[in-house]
C-alpha cells in the first residue's frame, strides 16, 4: 500500500450526474446515467456497498463532465492526455466526486478509434471514489492508462485481483463467493439483467388498466428523483424533468419484485431519506424495497413506525427537515428515520397544514423544494418550509403531471364503438400531436 487506505464508513452511497457531456450526440442523459449505474454496480455486485441515484445536491458521489481548469487542482488538458479523475473517500467535501473531461469524445459500444469508452473509464474512476489506488497489474481496471473498451456493461466482471483489493477495503458481499478464482466460471451466471429497471410490459395493456387522465391515484412518490403515480395494480413514471416515460401504465408486480400477487393496490409509498430504501404501505402492513427488490422479512405491521393499524393515507419526506410525515384522515405524525421513532407530541391535526383537505390520497416532495399533496383529481403545492398551500391551488393532477388535456382520455370507452375506425371520421380521433406533445417510451 502506497498510502493510508481511505474508505467510506457508510455502506449506502448516493450519486448524481450533475452535468452531462455537452456536445455528444451519441450519449444522451439517460444513457450516461445508465452507464454510471452499471459502472457503480460493478463494485456493488461484489462488495457490500449500495449505490443510489438521487436528485439533490448533496450526493456522496457528484459526477461532472467538465473541461480545462475546473478549480479542483486537476485541470483537464483537452482531447487525450488526462481523461478523468475521482476523489478518494475521506473528510473532504469533494470525497467521491468524479470528473470526466468534456473535451474527450466519449463513446459507448463504439470501436476503440472512435473515442474513449465512458463505461470503462467510469468503472476505473469509481474504483478511486470508493478508495482504490492505481495498480501496475496489466489486467486491472485500476491501471492508470486507458486500455480501450471493456465490452458490454451488463456482462463486465472485475478481475480477481481487483475483487481482492476491494474486498480488503469493504469485505465480501454476502451473495459473492470470494473463493471463485480466475478461469473458473461461477456456478451460475449472476442475473445481471434482473436488476435492470424494466417498466415496459411486452403485453398489450390489460383491460383493467386505468385511464391516467380520469384517475385519482392511490399513491404518489418521488423515488430516485422521479415521480411515480400508483393506481390499482399499475403505475406511471415521470422523469425528473417531468416527462412521462410512457403513456401506458406499468404493472406494479412486474417492476416491484416481491409484492404479493394478490395485492391490488397500495395506500402510500415513500423513499427513505437515510438509506434510500422504498417503503410501500397497504392497510396495516408495509413492505421494504432495496431498489426494486423486496427485502427479506416483509410485510411487517405499520405499528413498527408507531402508527395505528388502521392504515396510512399519505407518506412523504419533508425536504425542509428530512423528517417523514404520515397522514391518516384528519391527523398527521412526524417520524424520525435516524432514531427510528415517532417524534413526541404527535399525532396532530392535519388542519395545521392550511389549505389542504383531510383524507389525502398521498403526498411527495419534489426537486423544486416544494411538497405536493394529492386528493381526488387535484393537487396542492406547499412551497419550501411553509405549512400552507400556495394560492392558485388545487389544480388538476392529470393536466399538470400526466400530460392530459382537460377533455382527454387515454382510450375510447370500451363499451362504445370506435367512431373514427368505423366511419372514417378522423375528427373524433384524439390526436395527441395536436396537444403539442409527442411522448416516447424508450430505455437506455
Amino acid at each position, binding site marked *: 500500500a502506497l*498510502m493510508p487506505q481511505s474508505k467510506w464508513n457508510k455502506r449506502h452511497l448516493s450519486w448524481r450526474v450533475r452535468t452531462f457531456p455537452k456536445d455528444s450526440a451519441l450519449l444522451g442523459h439517460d444513457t450516461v446515467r445508465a452507464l454510471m449505474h452499471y459502472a457503480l454496480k460493478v463494485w456493488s455486485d461484489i462488495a457490500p456497498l449500495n449505490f443510489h441515484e438521487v436528485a439533490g445536491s448533496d450526493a456522496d458521489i457528484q459526477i461532472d463532465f467538465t473541461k480545462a481548469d475546473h478549480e479542483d487542482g486537476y485541470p483537464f488538458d483537452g482531447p487525450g*492526455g488526462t481523461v478523468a479523475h475521482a476523489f478518494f473517500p475521506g473528510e473532504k467535501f469533494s470525497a467521491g466526486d468524479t470528473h470526466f473531461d468534456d473535451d474527450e469524445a466519449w463513446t459507448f459500444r463504439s470501436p476503440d478509434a472512435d473515442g*474513449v469508452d465512458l463505461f470503462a473509464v467510469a468503472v476505473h474512476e469509481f474504483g478511486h471514489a470508493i478508495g482504490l*489506488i*492505481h495498480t*501496475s497489474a496489466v489486467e486491472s481496471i485500476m491501471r492508470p*492508462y486507458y486500455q480501450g473498451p471493456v465490452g458490454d456493461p451488463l456482462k463486465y466482471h472485475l478481475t480477481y485481483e481487483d475483487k481482492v483489493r476491494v474486498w480488503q477495503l469493504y469485505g465480501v458481499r454476502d451473495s459473492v463467493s470470494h473463493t471463485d478464482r480466475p478461469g473458473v466460471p461461477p456456478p451460475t451466471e449472476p442475473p445481471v439483467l434482473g436488476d435492470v429497471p424494466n417498466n415496459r410490459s411486452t403485453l398489450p395493456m390489460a383491460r383493467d388498466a386505468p385511464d391516467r387522465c380520469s384517475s385519482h391515484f392511490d399513491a404518489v412518490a418521488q423515488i430516485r428523483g422521479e415521480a411515480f403515480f400508483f393506481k390499482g395494480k399499475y403505475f406511471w413514471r415521470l422523469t425528473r424533468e417531468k416527462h412521462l416515460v410512457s403513456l401506458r401504465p406499468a404493472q406494479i408486480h412486474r417492476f416491484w419484485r416481491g409484492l404479493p400477487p394478490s395485492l391490488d393496490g397500495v395506500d402510500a409509498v415513500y423513499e427513505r431519506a437515510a438509506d434510500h430504501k422504498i417503503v410501500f404501505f397497504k392497510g396495516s402492513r408495509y413492505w421494504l424495497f432495496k431498489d426494486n427488490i423486496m427485502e427479506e422479512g416483509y410485510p411487517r405491521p405499520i405499528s413498527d413506525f408507531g402508527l395505528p393499524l388502521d392504515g396510512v393515507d399519505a407518506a412523504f419526506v419533508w425536504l425542509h427537515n428530512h423528517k417523514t410525515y404520515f397522514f391518516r384522515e384528519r391527523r398527521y405524525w412526524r417520524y424520525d428515520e435516524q432514531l427510528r421513532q415517532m417524534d413526541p407530541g404527535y399525532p396532530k391535526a392535519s388542519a395545521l397544514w392550511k389549505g389542504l383537505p383531510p383524507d389525502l390520497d398521498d403526498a411527495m416532495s419534489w426537486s423544486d423544494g416544494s411538497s405536493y399533496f394529492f386528493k381526488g383529481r387535484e393537487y396542492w403545492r406547499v412551497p419550501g418550509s411553509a405549512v400552507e398551500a400556495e394560492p392558485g391551488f388545487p389544480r388538476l393532477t392529470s393536466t399538470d403531471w400526466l400530460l392530459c388535456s382537460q377533455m382527454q382520455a387515454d382510450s375510447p370507452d370500451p363499451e362504445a364503438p370506435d367512431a373514427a375506425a368505423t366511419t372514417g371520421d378522423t375528427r373524433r380521433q384524439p390526436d395527441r400531436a395536436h396537444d403539442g406533445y409527442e411522448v416516447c417510451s424508450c430505455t437506455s
Partner: protein
Amino acid sequence: GAAPSGTAQLDSVDWLSRFGYLPSPDPVTGQLQTQEALTRAIRAMQRFGGLKETGIFDQDTLLLMGTPRCSLPDVPEGSTGRSRR
C-alpha cells in the same frame, strides 16, 4: 531525454512530477532535478507501466506517456524521495 510528443504541452519531467514519480520541484532551485533522481523516476515509471527499465525516455516510454490516462498520480504525494529510517 526529449519531451514526449503526445502529452499535450507537458514535457516529460512535468509528466513524471504530475503522476508522482518525481518529487515536487524544490522551491529554491525551481524545476531543477538531479539526473540521478530523473533516471530513478523514469525507471519507476517504466516498472509501473510494465516496460523495460532503461532509465531513459525511449520510444516505448514516450508512447506510454502519451496514452490517455487518469489524472490521479500513480505514486501518491509524500511517498517519493528519501524515507525516514
